[in-house]
């Protein structure tokens, strides 16, 4: 059982939350020529690491607000909780962000987001 510190309500039981899966996935923009392969990569393919994973959670039985969370998928240790639309700040969190294959994927390369974060 996880104890999750909701940024808005404080520490609560895992059962009050829902996990929304991988964070920071960027939808490829349509002003590029999208192939089925690139869209499939965005829509279906998963980053599924054994180690630190960045994911979205929602405090469904509480304030119903979303936030990001960096968690180890082996020890279940929660490393960092940070707001939506923001990148992780801890060393482990940053490393997990870079380790994700999506950062080098075609689906992310053709998104506006990638161009913005490169600057």
């Amino acid at each position, binding site marked *: *059982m*996880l104890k999750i510190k909701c940024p808005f309500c404080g520490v609560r039981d*895992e*059962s009050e939350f*829902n*996990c929304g*899966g991988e964070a920071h996935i960027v939808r490829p923009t349509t002003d590029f020529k999208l192939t*089925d*392969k690139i869209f*499939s*990569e965005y*829509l*279906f*393919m*998963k980053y*599924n*690491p*054994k180690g630190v*994973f960045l*994911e979205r959670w929602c405090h469904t039985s509480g304030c119903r607000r979303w936030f990001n969370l960096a*968690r180890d*998928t*082996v*020890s*279940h240790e929660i490393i960092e909780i940070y707001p939506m639309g923001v990148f992780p700040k801890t060393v482990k969190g940053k490393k997990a962000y870079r380790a994700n*294959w999506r950062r080098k*994927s075609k689906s992310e390369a053709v998104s506006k987001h990638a161009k913005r974060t490169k600057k």
Partner: protein
Amino acid sequence: MAKLNIDRGTRAFARKSKRYSIFSIAKNAASYHQKWQQAWRHAEPKSTYDAVIIGGGGHGLATAYYLANIHGMTNIAVIEKGWLGGGNTGRNTTIIRSNYMWDESAAIYEHALKLWEGLSQDLNFNVMFSQRGVLTISHSEHELKGMSRRVHAIRLNGIDSDILSPSEIKKLVPTINIDPNIRYPVMGGFLQKRAGTARHDAVAWGYARAADELGVDIIQNCEVTGLRRNGNQITGIQTTKGFVKTSKVGCVVAGHSSIIADMANIRLPITSRPLQAIVSEPIKPILDTVIMSNAVHMYISQSDKGEMVLGAGVDKYNSYAQTGSWTIPEHMVAAAIDLFPFLSQLRMLRQWGGIVDTCPDASPIISRTDIKGLYFNCGWGTGGFKATPGSGHVFADLIANDRPNPIALPFGLKRFETGYLIDEHGAAGVAH
């Protein structure tokens, strides 16, 4: 629905080693069971194999057995990180059935069920396959209507399936609570009589012994650390026991599929989740049918040892720890007690989790990859055990002939690009 002749192979037990039979039990009793032959060799890796299977669970061992027995590939190895059947093969709730709605799923699960019927004879190993029937209960008018649609689709594929009324259910399962005033009242259900259970460890051991006898090397405590390739062709695997040269690698590693795929820079639509089960203290025989409920998300059966075996759905977040959150068993026990009030008197003995490889359409992946000689058999998610013989059978065919047969064809990785998904989230029932 695609159908193939069930080729059970002809090469098995060519070495004429000692058979298991009632006579061998009697003979060994005379020597106080001290002289039983070793079931399989403790092999060390050779430098070269024609094919290597990564993963010594039921599906991997079945693949190796059928590669050797049907396709004549005996210079092969199974490489297992831990011990045989120590992953999901030894952690599931042993339910076997083939009552899936979509033609593609019906084909592969029925193929498996046909192989289950006769597997003990094929392997000369009692896998304790017991066709005790699987009953899926519905708790509302609407669920019952959806269920009858499924039953008709299943019957059109020639798979046995019957709708039962609450009173027929009470007759079949006298301990069930059919009071209409409980939280989830029993409104009806459907039964597959040919479905049932098997002894999960025996499946791994039986396949291992039979494969070993055909010359397959079974290498335990050996972890794969890397894949080597030359251009687009696989050339070997790096393991903790050294480099092994091979041009064909079959990955059957369930929850760890993404880890192996990463070594080859291949993307999979897999997430790894814990799936939990619990068993009670053993009691006298009281339940001889497998009961499943999709609405309350619970399935229950009684093992031959007398333990009540319960399972539920996956945990809600990714994990590689073979445990899980307490909320899941709590919910599963509450639902079980509602249906079977006598269960409240039982103590639960053990709880555990296995890491399952869930797929977006809840159907498996049996596929070639962009790398020549690298094959994946994964994505079975919460319901792989029932498919063990069928999965190994068609995967061996894929590896040996480098093309999927009609049963395996719909389960290729390409479906995530074409959109031809085999959506079994509802059609299979939650607990599959």
